[in-house]
């Protein structure tokens, strides 16, 4: 039973994150086409609004999750020797955690 559903979790994650990112990108594109920020102050003020900063944070979580599932599949397809495979997955995972920390820093700093 566990075998039968083993691939479902990442499969579903990839799709849920994709749909959220699609909606966010449409929202972002609409904002930049209809009311593009004309200055640092306008851009900064827009980004630190509660709705935008939370939506951006969720976008980044979705993006990093989506990257994990996608690049993990690529690594599993092409990197066969176990030691190198584990090393590649570990390095990539740590890199994503680093990117996540960076994004949190940026968004919190924007509020400072």
């Amino acid at each position, binding site marked *: 039973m566990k075998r039968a559903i083993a691939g479902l979790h990442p499969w579903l994650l990839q*799709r849920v994150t*994709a*749909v959220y990112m*699609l909606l966010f*990108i449409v929202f972002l594109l609409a904002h930049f086409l209809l009311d593009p920020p004309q200055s*640092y*102050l306008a*851009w*900064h003020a827009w*980004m630190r609004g509660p709705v935008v900063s939370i939506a951006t944070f969720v976008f980044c979580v979705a*993006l990093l999750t989506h*990257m994990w599932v*996608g*690049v993990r599949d*690529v690594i599993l397809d092409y990197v066969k020797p176990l030691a190198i495979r584990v090393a590649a997955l570990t390095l990539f995972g740590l890199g994503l955690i680093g*990117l996540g920390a*960076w*994004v949190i820093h*940026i968004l919190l*700093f*924007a509020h400072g």
Partner: protein
Amino acid sequence: MRKPVFFNLTQIQLPVGAVTSITHRITGVLLAVGIPFGIYILDLSLQSPPSYARVIALFGYRSFKVVALVFIWALAHHLFAGVRHLLSDIDIGSRLQVARRSAWSVNIGGLAVALFAAGALF
């Protein structure tokens, strides 16, 4: 059972759906490589007025525009191919004829977005 392996690249048939599929993967890797730079640019744009001005100035460089254009094409193709994937999950466009047509739409759609972006950038 071993999977069959056939690596004669000159004889492998590559129908349009396969082009869309492998390009979905390639653009995914390209985007993954580009994301850290995207986060860096987001960081710069929010730090201070001078660093915001540096981001604006970046878009004046030809080489930066080319890289941005590749990223935009990769994003557009990856997004369209992803939507095609989601539709096929709910069994829309599974018939071969429809699948071929949607694969062409994805490939051309990605290039069309890149063309628009090129017009806006250059």
